[in-house]
């Protein structure tokens, strides 16, 4: 694996770094499972962290996009409140943004 990493330069380091950190996090969760408080401040922080990270990521992605991305995100958010199928929401989003890019830029 080492020659592969040397040859792959920054991508190799990205893969190795992320693989090691991800495994460490997963294993640490098991190892510390009994010690993590089941209630209280830190339990609430850890419970809310994933949702807050995804909200932050979406805020970044959408704010860095153009007007078609803003409009598509709004429409997909409304669609996702009705449809729970992940693949369907994703395919609809892709179709919607493709359509908007072809048809709407002149209007917006």
């Amino acid at each position, binding site marked *: 694996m080492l020659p592969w990493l040397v040859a792959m330069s*920054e*991508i190799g*380091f*990205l*893969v*190795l*770094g*992320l*693989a090691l*950190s*991800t495994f460490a*996090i*997963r*294993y640490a*969760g*098991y190892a510390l*499972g*009994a010690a*993590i408080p089941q209630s209280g*401040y*830190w339990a*609430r*922080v*850890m*419970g*809310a*962290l*994933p*949702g*807050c*990270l*995804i*909200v*932050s*990521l*979406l*805020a*970044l*992605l*959408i704010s*860095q996009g153009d007007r078609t*991305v803003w409009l*598509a*995100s709004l429409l*997909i958010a409304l669609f*996702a*409140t009705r449809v*729970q199928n*992940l*693949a369907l*929401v*994703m*395919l609809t*989003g*892709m*179709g*919607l*943004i493709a359509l908007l*890019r*072809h048809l709407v830029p002149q209007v917006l």
Partner: protein
Amino acid sequence: MSDVPGKRMPFREFQAGLIEIWPLGLGVLVYGFAFGVLTVQADMTLLQTGMMGAFVFAGASQIVAVERLVTDGAVLSGIVAGSVLNLRFLLLTASLCSELGGRPFWQIALGVHMTGDESWALMLSRKNQGQAVGYWYLVGGGCNLMLCWLASTMAGNSFSSFIADPMAWGLDFAFTAVFIALLRTFWKGRAVSLRPWMVSVAVVMGLQWLGLESSWTLMAGGVAGAAVAGCHV
């Protein structure tokens, strides 16, 4: 599949997990393909894409890390941002003590590596329904998802050349749509989630306006929102 409580053979349990997670595997196939196309934009080879899928096996963090690499060329911030997004695994695997406890190290390592949002949720859901599922069901589900993830990401990497302009197909928006769809599963009601989420958005917008690099902005937004959530009693 029988839902009568009782100890099952590991292979039967593994097989049940492998089969019953198929609907979730289909979802993985779709956005795995889109991620595979993204890996081409990062100049990743088929082998690198496969290695990343096998050794990291955490879709959202892979997407964020490669997206960081494509956007900023920043390896370290890609690792950090991906790792922060993976912090939720702490809670997932922390809840698996009864499934993982008392097993040899290799089984614990395999079990935690195969733990994903979907396999973890499905196993606990079946368990709550009274089915005799546990460690091997989790691993079976994880194996299915890993196969779907590897096949779709490598297919996306291999056939991206047939897609002349990914933006024209809307592939660059695929992950935004997926995250929007995933977000609803994290909503715990207005009283609990609204204020932390608003704080996260405000921090992201503020730091972006100040010109901070996006990965750090992402982490600051997530941590700030979670810190506020911790104060909610």
